[in-house]
């Protein structure tokens, strides 16, 4: 074992690995960055293509130990990248993937083409992507997607990358090792900085990847509900799975959210800020959190608006829940399941809130994690109800 220190997606990483460990295995097995795919493992298929010191390389035939001190960017590190964002939209629009296995490498290579070759025509794009094999699409959608991004950027007069994105000579990623590494350093097994402390004021606005609209009613007047919403600790107690880790202030609420979807469990630790507008009886909560175990991060936003019902005796709470998930958990590509989870969390929240406002003590389930069994029984109950409904409709 050798200690290898390098930077992955802008985070310093120091881990021990065998010299024979390729960069792809290193990021997949030790850092859970499984977006880098291994296909042929001998440099032909391109599925493992990542950025090394900013330029594409094959991570299956590049050994991690040879990248000492270098900067690695995997597909996960390109979430916010401008060109990759454009490419993702184009890939979606042009049906540029089916199974998605080649897509991470394809995006890394396509990004490089977009940056280097602003004049590329279809033939040059095809040649440029010839080192990335796709067995689903026949390449037509991929080529169209890349071409559309190149043309869009050309229309915006964006200049190509100078010097191919490199300054020095020699293999990408080479020569970055510290000149004199006196003695082998002790192995440290903490891939991610122990705790990413979130600096005050750094809870930024964002555009959620997914937005779910939910609503419920409470048998209390809007003004009372709005006042209740100002009680952060009280609200937190009503939110399933939420616990606070320090006394809350509106500009900064620190806490933990435990979420479980079937066998998938996560515990997002983070912070939020709360905004309210008494004039419109509306507000929002913006938060960020990370789940250390799965190396996943989330940004979330809950917007609420209170509307009077029954002449002001009751309140309709309209919620818009937006979130963006990155990391391992983002691979759960089942928005329907998440929507269902949100629906049940909101229903629990409403029930807890109602009990809290009516002065009834919360039941034992209120701040418990949602278990798979309750999901199963809920689904079964819903199905039985549907069957019964159908029967009665038929009869």
């Amino acid at each position, binding site marked *: 074992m050798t200690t290898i220190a390098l930077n992955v997606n802008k985070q310093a990483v120091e881990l021990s690995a065998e010299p024979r460990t390729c960069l792809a295995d290193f990021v997949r097995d030790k850092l859970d960055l499984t977006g880098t795919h291994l296909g042929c493992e001998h*440099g032909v298929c391109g599925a493992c293509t990542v950025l090394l010191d900013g330029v594409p390389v*094959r991570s299956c035939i590049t050994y991690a130990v040879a990248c000492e001190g270098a900067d690695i960017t995997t597909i996960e590190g390109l979430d916010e990248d401008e060109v990759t964002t454009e490419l993702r939209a184009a890939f979606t629009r042009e049906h540029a993937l089916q199974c998605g296995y080649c897509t991470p490498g394809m995006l890394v290579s396509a990004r490089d083409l977009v940056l280097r070759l602003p004049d590329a025509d279809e033939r040059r794009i095809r040649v440029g992507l010839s*080192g990335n094999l796709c067995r689903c699409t026949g390449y037509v959608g991929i080529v169209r997607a890349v071409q559309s991004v190149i043309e869009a950027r050309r229309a915006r007069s964006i200049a190509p990358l100078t010097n191919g994105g490199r300054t020095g000579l020699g293999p990408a990623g080479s020569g970055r090792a510290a000149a004199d590494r006196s003695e082998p350093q002790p192995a440290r097994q903490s891939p991610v900085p122990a705790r990413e402390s979130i600096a005050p004021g750094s809870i930024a606005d964002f555009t959620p990847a997914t937005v779910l609209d939910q609503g419920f009613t409470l048998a209390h007047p809007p003004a009372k509900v709005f006042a209740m919403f100002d009680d952060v600790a009280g609200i937190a107690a009503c939110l399933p799975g939420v616990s606070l880790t320090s006394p809350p202030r509106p500009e900064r609420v620190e806490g933990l959210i435990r979420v479980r979807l079937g066998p998938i469990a996560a515990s997002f630790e983070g912070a939020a800020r709360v905004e309210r507008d008494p004039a419109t009886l509306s507000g929002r909560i913006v938060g960020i959190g990370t789940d250390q175990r799965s190396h996943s991060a989330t940004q979330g936003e809950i917007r609420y608006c209170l509307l009077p019902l029954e002449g002001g005796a009751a309140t309709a709470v309209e919620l818009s829940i937006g979130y963006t998930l990155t990391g391992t958990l983002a691979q759960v590509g089942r928005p329907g399941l998440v929507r269902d989870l949100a629906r049940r969390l909101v229903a629990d929240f409403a029930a807890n809130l109602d009990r809290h406002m009516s002065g009834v003590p919360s039941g034992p389930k209120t701040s418990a994690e949602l278990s798979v069994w309750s999901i199963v029984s809920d689904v079964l109950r819903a199905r039985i109800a549907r069957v019964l409904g159908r029967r009665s409709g038929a009869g």
Partner: protein
Amino acid sequence: MKPAPFAYERPRDLDAALSMLAASNGSAKIIAGGQSLGPMLNLRLVQPELIIDISGLTELKRADVSGGELVLGALVTHADIEDGRTADVTRGAMRAVAANIAYRAVRNRGTIGGSLSHADPAADWISALAALGARMTLRSCAGARTMTIEAFVVGALESALQAGEIVESIHVPTRSASAHWGYAKSCRKTGEFAHAIGAVLIDPAAATARVVIGAIDTAPIVLTDAAGLFGGRIAADYKERFDAGIADAVLAKAGIDDVVQRHIHVGVLKRAVQEAAA
């Protein structure tokens, strides 16, 4: 598809690398970009006890023009040449060759010295640099020696490198203003190893021609005086005078019995001649 375990050393300079190599008694392998060695390690075709990584050695990352020739350190990558980060004394010839080696991700790490050391007959540099009249310097603890590319490549994956010796630099002569260059290769799939390579450096003004027929499963055929392929003399009309029958005979004499193979090689060479004349 994982390599057998190996030890790894990252020497701090060329002397240290040469000492390690000398001390290893043949059980070590030099790695630079690893784009040829990597696949062989992964396939366990090669199982060295020790890998000596020279990729960080700045002494091997030079690219200077001196005395009418370009001196490239062994670690200069194909992408370095493709992008023009190195001076070009061949008026675009080397850039075009570099740009069509394998794929960009490979060119970003694969080195000119590594490609030559590997001596794969189907690789581009052994043919292209032989046609350009390049030489190379090999170094060991005992000293350095210089030889032509055609002398360096002995056979398929066989070079003149002796135990303890590594490729240090490549010397590329300036292409004269009147010299025409043509390079063609046949690949069944873009970027894969060539099945036929033709490289020509023809100077009608000086009445000289260097012709290389490569990717023939052994060291390339290098004709330093190729007038015979053009009716005995090199002049402005060399394209019309190209004699496919002679080329075929040269290939047959080199031991290529398969008529179809010879046909492909002759066809690719003809394309290189046409490109030079264009």
